[in-house]
């Protein structure tokens, strides 16, 4: 891959994040104001110190005006970015490159989504593109449910065991979210309850699905050499990768639904930028895109945290638990923290920010060195993937 990376050239010096959940009383504008001011305060800056903004939202607004108007941004560039469920990460990536280039000194990446006003459960299409009416019309849980039987078949895992593995992932993420005051669902859920939850698609029940929620999060980014002007504890970007695949998994029979080639490619790229040789050993913790439980299972292998065919064992063995060797989704993940699309990538980074600075309270992981965020959008066989590596 041709990306050269910006290892240790950009720092995050402030972050903000709203509680995620059903914000019936707050608008998109309210959420943006909350997250932006939280981040300004965190970085110790005033709004006028921000030179440029990158706003991520999938369907809660169009153009930079979605942020400029409620925040009263004074005639500065505000770029709206969108890359499906990886939108929030795309905002970070573009803001990071902007300050790295020297074009701006201080940039804000801010992401927001308000999903609960639609009146429907689950995600609803953002619409807009005129259609020829030939789409299969499958929902996100249905698309991701295809991973589960394919994984079981390929690695000889019986379906009952697989059910327990998936429930273990949901159990873990709820356990973590129960220790997070900003999470949508702050309670532990028993394995029995997860196993028995009403079916949504294939073998996936409602408890295999991420929380549909409202929320916003924001980050203030500066060049590394300026970081200590703002905070004693900045975090530094080691690698940033974003890839869009050619969607061949939906068209070629070779694709077997046990991997995301896009994730493999973006992980490879980010690790090269960050100088990581062995992700299983070198990455202390990760926030990954657990939109549905089988996604997290497959991601452990695509990101190199588990050998192929071994992630289910590592999951059951507790490797990815909060107190395990390589905690995954310590903040509760999409599953428990909730998934307001445009905000999720920034929410992942917010947990890295807290953990690397030792501010994660009850969830604090002991002396983390490197953290990873992984965000994807689309479906198995047809997706975009983002991987970042961050550290002190």
């Amino acid at each position, binding site marked *: 891959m041709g990306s050269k990376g910006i290892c240790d050239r950009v720092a995050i010096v402030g972050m903000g994040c709203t509680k995620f959940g059903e914000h019936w009383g707050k608008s998109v504008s309210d959420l943006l104001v909350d997250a932006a001011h939280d981040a300004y305060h965190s970085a110790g800056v005033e709004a006028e110190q921000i030179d440029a903004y990158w706003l991520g939202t999938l369907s809660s607004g169009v153009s930079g005006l979605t942020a400029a108007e409620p925040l009263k941004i004074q005639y500065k560039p505000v770029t709206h970015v969108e890359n499906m469920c990886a939108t929030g990460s795309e905002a970070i990536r573009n803001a990071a490159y902007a300050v790295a280039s020297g074009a701006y000194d201080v940039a804000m990446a801010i992401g927001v989504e308000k999903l609960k006003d*639609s009146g*429907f*459960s*689950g995600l*609803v*299409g953002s*619409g807009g593109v*005129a*259609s*020829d*009416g*030939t789409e*299969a*019309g*499958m*929902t996100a*849980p*249905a*698309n991701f*449910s*295809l991973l589960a*039987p*394919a994984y079981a*078949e390929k690695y000889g895992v019986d379906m009952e065991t697989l059910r327990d593995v998936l429930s273990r992932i949901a159990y873990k993420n709820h356990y973590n979210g129960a220790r997070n005051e900003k999470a949508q669902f702050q309670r532990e859920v028993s394995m029995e309850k997860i196993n028995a939850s009403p*079916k*949504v*698609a*294939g073998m996936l029940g409602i408890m295999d699905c991420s929380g549909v929620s409202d929320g916003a999060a924001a980050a203030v980014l500066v060049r590394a050499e300026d970081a200590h002007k703002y905070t004693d504890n900045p975090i530094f970007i080691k690698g940033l990768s974003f890839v869009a695949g*050619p*969607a*061949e998994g*939906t*068209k*070629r*029979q070779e*694709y077997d*639904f046990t991997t995301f080639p896009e994730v493999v490619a973006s992980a490879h790229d980010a690790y090269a930028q960050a100088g990581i040789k062995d992700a299983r050993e070198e990455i202390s913790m990760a926030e990954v895109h657990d939109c549905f439980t089988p996604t997290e299972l497959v991601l452990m292998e695509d990101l190199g945290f588990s050998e192929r065919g071994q992630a289910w064992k590592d999951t059951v063995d507790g490797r990815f638990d909060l107190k395990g060797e390589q905690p995954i989704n310590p903040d509760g993940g999409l599953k428990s923290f909730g998934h307001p699309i445009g905000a999720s990538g920034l929410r992942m980074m917010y947990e890295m920010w807290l953990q690397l600075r030792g501010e994660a309270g009850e969830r604090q992981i002991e002396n983390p060195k490197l953290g990873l965020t992984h965000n994807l959008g689309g479906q198995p066989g047809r997706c975009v993937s983002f991987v970042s590596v961050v550290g002190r």
Partner: protein
Amino acid sequence: MAGIQRYGSYVPFCRLQRSAIGAGKGERAAASYDEDAVSMAVEASREAMRAFEGGIDRLVFATTSAPYLEKLNATTIHAALDLDSAVSASDMTTSSRSGVVALSDALDASHAGRTTLVAASDVVVGAPGGPRESQGGDAAATVVVGPGDGIAKLIGRASRTEEVLDVWRSEGMAFASQWEERFGAEVFVPMFASTIQAALADAGISADDLDAALIDSTNARVNRAIPKATGIAAEKFLGAAEFAGSVGRAGAANAALLLANALDQAKPGDKILVGVAADGADVLIFEATDALADARPKHSVADWLASKKDDLAYTAYLKWRGVLPFEPPRRPDPDRPASPPMMRAERWKYAFVGSKCTKCSAVNLPPQRVCVACQAVDEMEPVQCADAQCRVATYTIDRLAYSLQPPVVAAVVDFSEGGRLNCQLTDVDPESVGIGDELEMTFRRFFVAGGVHNYFWKARPQR
């Protein structure tokens, strides 16, 4: 010289038991939630066209349940059959006799050297509790008629027209009305009998010379009285009693379905009379030729009848036909498809024509300009996939997706000639799907939005 060149039939998978309505014995065929007269006409026409090497000059769609009240319905069938745009298309609607009228017209066109595909198809909806609901049925049959004897040559015909108010439906009426049957019988029995006699005279044969008599009318009393009124032996009314109990009267498609069934069984030299009494009468007499044996479609009518789900719930049936209001899916209504993209995707959307890379032979579904396998640019040729063998690579049951009949069964389908498509399955028991299942493609109406009938292909277990 004119004759039937090919034929095909289609009976939908679902059956509604009359006992479920409290309407006696037997069952009726019911178009699925994703079918209408156009989609069923496509299925029957694919059967007829599959083994036909000749060309078609005209396509006529006969029905009383046209999906569009304004806009040609036949064009959708035309597109699904991937016919050349020089082939004309027209609708023949509003009467149960439309099917046989179209056939009669097609025989006339044969004398001008033109070959016509007549696709007769009907979704018969009656008011709940009435005889049209319980005795009606949904089915389609296609007959290709052209110059030459073909598989069954025309040997006699007769026609009558009568302005009699028997069955009618006007704007704003959800269901057709019918005048008292005793009056209809009084008028139609002698008229129909005399038309049959005139056709026999035209053919120069007697009632005894017939091997099959396929008669249809909107009035059951007429059908019962015709054997005695014409002297045609009761056993020659092939399929009449059986289909009444298994399909129901399939409106404008009924006579063509009976004809298809008779052709499924006929021997060379058999003389087959087909006639319909409704707003007058048309009667045609054909004689099967030696060519028939090698020209039969993949599925006989008996095959279709044997392949069924026979426990359709009455409430589901009423919901599918739009008779019963119901709790909508908790999803946004689908957007209507847009005209320009539908036009650009015509061969894909309607005829299921994908693209095949001339550099690496990879099949790309939907058609692509840049090959998904080798990235060659604009090196594609069209490839017809509607009849390709396909199998389930993996599948899921989507309980959240929008559908008139949830859950949606969705599968990743791999084609034997290459290519893969995520698509919906239909006519399927969600519990019985498995990886490796052999499937076949079927043309369906996905949904109606903004008054636009959105058609595309689904996969179904082989019937």
